[in-house]
């Protein structure tokens, strides 16, 4: 680990100012990504600004019926909160499918949004990686790429987004509150994550020193009928090979509306708008789910070792849709 200066921030403005003051400075929340990557010398901040004392730990009801989750709410607390469990079940399920109980006690809402990829080459400073070292090349393109993305990839980067939490947040159109040099503003999650394109090192729409302060979950009553299905190499405590967050609005024997996002297969949490459109107005059932799965994976671009993810993601999505339909 490279030497750094440790500062504890007393409030949002001080935290943001401290990070803006030094290029490469980092906020420290749960530390489950940052400390790990610092040990690997992938992250080399000269200043670490501890934001654990900031009072961003509330889960609040919003006047419009939505819920606001503070950036420092721990993943385990969000997963087990009654409002999340009852009104956003797929979000609770996704959180509980992520990592381990110890890590969920540490990891925060804001930190999970900033979680980095598990690409082996990103995590290994001996290897080229355009995300870690722009212009150095991508070792994953023709390397071991079984865990890599098949959607949203570029010739510069095929790293998969690792978060479970962000998959239902993407299906929900969650809104991210940030605070920085230009004051508080909001960013819809659909605009928060950038595709790698030619600049895979720029992952989000955050400006330097902007601090995530909260996430708003919009009111969406039919999300009580929602499911998160995660497929991984072992039964628990592993990242997704493919996952699906699904919510269905059923009525009169039809699907009135659907929300679908995929994890483990995209370079960002992957919203499947085309799949949602195929389901709107359709009769629930295997035929509709198959069509939705085909639409969701349209344009998938596999490499040598991850073509299996196309079929796996389709079946994961179909299973999630069938389970959502079967809910009482």
């Amino acid at each position, binding site marked *: 680990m490279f030497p750094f200066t440790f500062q504890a921030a007393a409030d949002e403005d001080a935290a943001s100012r401290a990070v803006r003051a030094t290029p490469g400075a980092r906020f420290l929340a749960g530390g489950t990504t940052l400390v790990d990557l610092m040990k690997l010398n992938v992250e080399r901040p000269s200043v670490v600004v501890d934001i654990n004392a900031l009072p961003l730990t509330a889960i609040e009801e919003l006047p419009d019926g939505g819920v606001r989750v503070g950036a420092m709410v721990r993943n385990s607390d969000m997963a087990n909160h009654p409002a999340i469990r009852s009104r956003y079940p797929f979000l609770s399920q996704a959180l509980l499918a992520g990592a381990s109980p110890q890590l969920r*006690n540490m990891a925060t809402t804001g930190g999970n949004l900033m979680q980095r990829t598990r690409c082996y080459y990103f995590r290994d400073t001996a290897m080229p990686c355009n995300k870690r070292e722009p212009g150095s090349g991508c070792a994953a393109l023709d390397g071991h790429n079984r865990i890599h993305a098949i959607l949203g990839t570029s010739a510069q980067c095929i790293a998969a987004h690792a978060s479970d939490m962000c998959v239902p947040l993407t299906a929900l159109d969650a809104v991210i509150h940030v605070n920085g040099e230009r004051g508080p503003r909001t960013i819809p999650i659909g605009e928060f994550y950038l595709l790698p394109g030619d600049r895979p090192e720029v992952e989000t729409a955050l400006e330097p020193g902007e601090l995530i302060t909260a996430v708003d979950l919009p009111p969406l009553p039919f999300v009580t009928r929602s499911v998160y299905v995660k497929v991984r190499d072992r039964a628990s405590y592993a990242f997704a090979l493919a996952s699906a967050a699904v919510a269905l609005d059923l009525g009169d024997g039809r699907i009135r509306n659907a929300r679908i996002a995929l994890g483990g297969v995209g370079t960002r949490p992957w919203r499947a708008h085309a799949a949602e459109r195929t389901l709107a107005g359709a009769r629930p059932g295997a035929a509709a789910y198959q069509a939705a799965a085909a639409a969701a994976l349209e344009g998938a671009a596999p490499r040598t070792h991850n073509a299996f993810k196309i079929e796996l993601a389709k079946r994961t999505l179909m299973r999630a849709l069938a389970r959502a339909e079967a809910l009482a």
Partner: protein
Amino acid sequence: MVSGQSDLSRREFMTRTVGGSLAMAALPESQNAATPATGTVADPDSPAAESQLRVRCAINDEHTELTIDPRVTLLDALRERLRLTGTKKGCDHGQCGACTVHVDGRRVLSCLTLAAAVNGKRITTIEGLARGDELHPIQQAFIDHDGFQCGYCTPGQVMSAVALLDEPCGPADADVRECMSGNICRCGAYPNIVNAIQSVRGTGSVWRSSPSGSAARSGHPGSADIGSVQRSAKRSRHAERS
């Protein structure tokens, strides 16, 4: 602790393993207190003294002060500075659970926790579970059910299991396996670990503070009133430890 011709029985040896290094918990405060950085933690490239941090926290109910390099993890501070070596270093990257400790009553991974970030916190390690010679019921259950083989992952397993008792974990064995999934055991002692944990939840002989556990226990035979009486007695003695 053990030599080739040790006359310690396996059970005695494992009792000490599950309990961590019990003697260490009794270190006088002078030995627990901060000492100048030694070669074990300090790096030759270490920044100058002015970047060293003062950290004050309570470790196993003892007030502790440390002066540390910001890079030192809680795990290394415990093991190398405070000689609390019951907490184990496995992967050092948050993938095995061997370093599990409690911070403010919740289980976390000490390998991914900067010591600088626990200023003002309350930390419990495996050395802080037992009261004198009286093991925590989870420690005793691991011995009774042979919940380990080599013992290396055991302190982390025990710390997770103790925390699990106050978490919303379902009643089934499968629920326990999921709740313990953050602790890897290379020997594969999982079935006996689950048995050990379920025996404590089932008999209710555990020090608990959360009402969530009563629902979780209801499916188990032996969770009758007697268990509650035992629990109350334990809690009154150990109330501050919950």
